[in-house]
């Protein structure tokens, strides 16, 4: 084989060849099948658990003020669907606003720390102080300062998501490809340009890893706040129902919280897939 031929062959392969990973197939049929394959086993598992629960209550004759039968909880949810939805939205409001506030402050502080070690030494200890303070201990304080309603929820949710997002953001801002940095430096790019064009996108996988578990954490924060100071929201619904030994309502509230958590997790994952399409965590298997 002549060198000439070898070169021609290579170029054809290299240029016309299919890339190793093409755009993923988005046909509706295969999408549905994939969804069914994921959902059906989960549904069977959940059904089995509810069935066992129902049977246990029936056989052992467990008192409804201790543990309610699943069908009672379902009845309760069905009767007052609008009530539970509204209270759920109240909790969601506090959780999401808190998440946005906490994440915003965390990302801004991490971006400052990524610019100079001295800023890191100034800010990081304060962040650790916030981290190690039990949220439950300061929740009553926040009620005194901010009263009832939305503000304590937002604050507690923000405090709870702040630290993990800040730590991940800081690692992300520093996890940059050395060659890409050298390239930008060789073009005399400014610090702001390096940040926006390289550090921020490089941090996105780390940020989303933090979002995945801090979004559900923000719901926990909002519920804790409602527990102490809420006039509205699922946290106060559960609190009041508990005091009245109204287990069906309490469990309905818990169920709504679980739905909320799952929904938020799925939304976060969907956004992550869109934003991080370029990252190896999202390449087709």
């Amino acid at each position, binding site marked *: 084989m002549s*060198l*000439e031929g*070898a*070169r021609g062959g*290579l*170029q054809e392969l*290299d*240029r*016309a*060849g299919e*890339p*190793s*990973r*093409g755009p993923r197939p988005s046909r509706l049929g295969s999408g549905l099948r994939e969804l069914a394959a994921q959902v059906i086993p989960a549904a069977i598992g959940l059904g089995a658990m509810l069935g066992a629960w129902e049977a246990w209550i029936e056989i052992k004759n467990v008192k409804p003020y201790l543990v309610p039968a699943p069908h009672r909880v379902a009845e309760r949810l069905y009767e007052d669907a609008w009530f539970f939805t509204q209270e759920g939205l109240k909790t969601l409001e506090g959780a999401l606003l808190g998440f946005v506030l906490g994440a915003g402050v965390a990302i801004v502080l991490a971006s400052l720390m990524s610019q100079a070690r001295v800023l890191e030494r100034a800010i990081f200890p304060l962040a650790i102080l916030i981290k190690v303070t039990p949220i439950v201990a300061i929740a009553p304080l926040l009620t005194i300062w901010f009263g009832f309603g939305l503000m304590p929820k937002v604050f507690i949710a923000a405090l709870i998501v702040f630290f993990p997002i800040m730590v991940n953001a800081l690692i992300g801002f520093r996890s940059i*490809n*050395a*060659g*890409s940095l*050298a*390239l*930008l*430096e*060789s*073009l*005399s*790019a*400014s610090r702001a*340009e390096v940040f926006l*064009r*390289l550090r921020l*996108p490089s941090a*996105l996988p780390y940020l989303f890893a933090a979002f995945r578990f801090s979004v559900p954490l923000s719901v926990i924060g909002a519920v804790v706040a409602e527990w102490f100071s809420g006039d509205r929201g699922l946290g106060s619904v559960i609190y009041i129902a508990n005091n009245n030994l109204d287990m069906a309502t309490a469990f309905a509230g818990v169920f709504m919280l679980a739905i909320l958590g799952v929904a938020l997790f799925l939304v976060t994952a969907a956004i992550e897939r869109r934003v991080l*399409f*370029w*990252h*190896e965590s999202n*390449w087709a298997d």
Partner: protein
Amino acid sequence: MVYEDTQRSLRALAGIDLSIGRGEFVSIIGPSGCGKTTLLRIVGGLQSPTSGRVLIDGRAPQEAQREKQIGFVFQDPSLLPWRNVIENVRLPLQVNRRKHTGKDPERVVELVGLENFRRYYPHQLSGGMQQRVAIARSFVTSPSVLLMDEPFGALDEITRSAMRFELLRVWRSEAADPDCTVVFVTHSISEAVLLSDRVIVMSPQPGRIAASLEIDLPRPRDEAVEETQQFIDYTRRLRGLLREHALV
């Protein structure tokens, strides 16, 4: 250049005296750890020498950087994974807006033969294609100095040999400044001979210039060059120089 740490200082480079003509293609060859990369980074203004200076057209490298006169290609293509081919090639035009003139990214991408892959992302491309994007990116600002640090070092031998000619073709095409000077760091004797007007042999500890070899092969060069007696003689002489100077 002296590297210092707490225990001891390491002299990376010593007494480097080198001038390179405008439009010249110079390769630097030597064993690992002889300071080739450090030298290249100092020439490109990414590192400052402990003593001595570099002048590019009479100016400091940092000044040349501001004018985007320096193009870099590393062994790792260093593409931004969230940008597709054309967006990666456009990047140098988007930062440091003091100088925003340059080549049309579409045209440069065509020149490296990736016109059908403009919207592909780096993870969808082979290693050779990624390095072509990196080369296109280095030419887009039309630099007067192109610094290449073992750009084909991570590629397989077949792709590597094709990429050498690809580089020569783009370097001599209308995409490049006609006076574009290339400094090319490599481990490969045949690569150095094939590409260069001159090969600099470096020896380690501390890194210094041990020998220099003019390569007087006609341009443009193609695959046939590798089979000429002249080419074979040059590689033999270069191998001899390396054996003589560059063994640790």
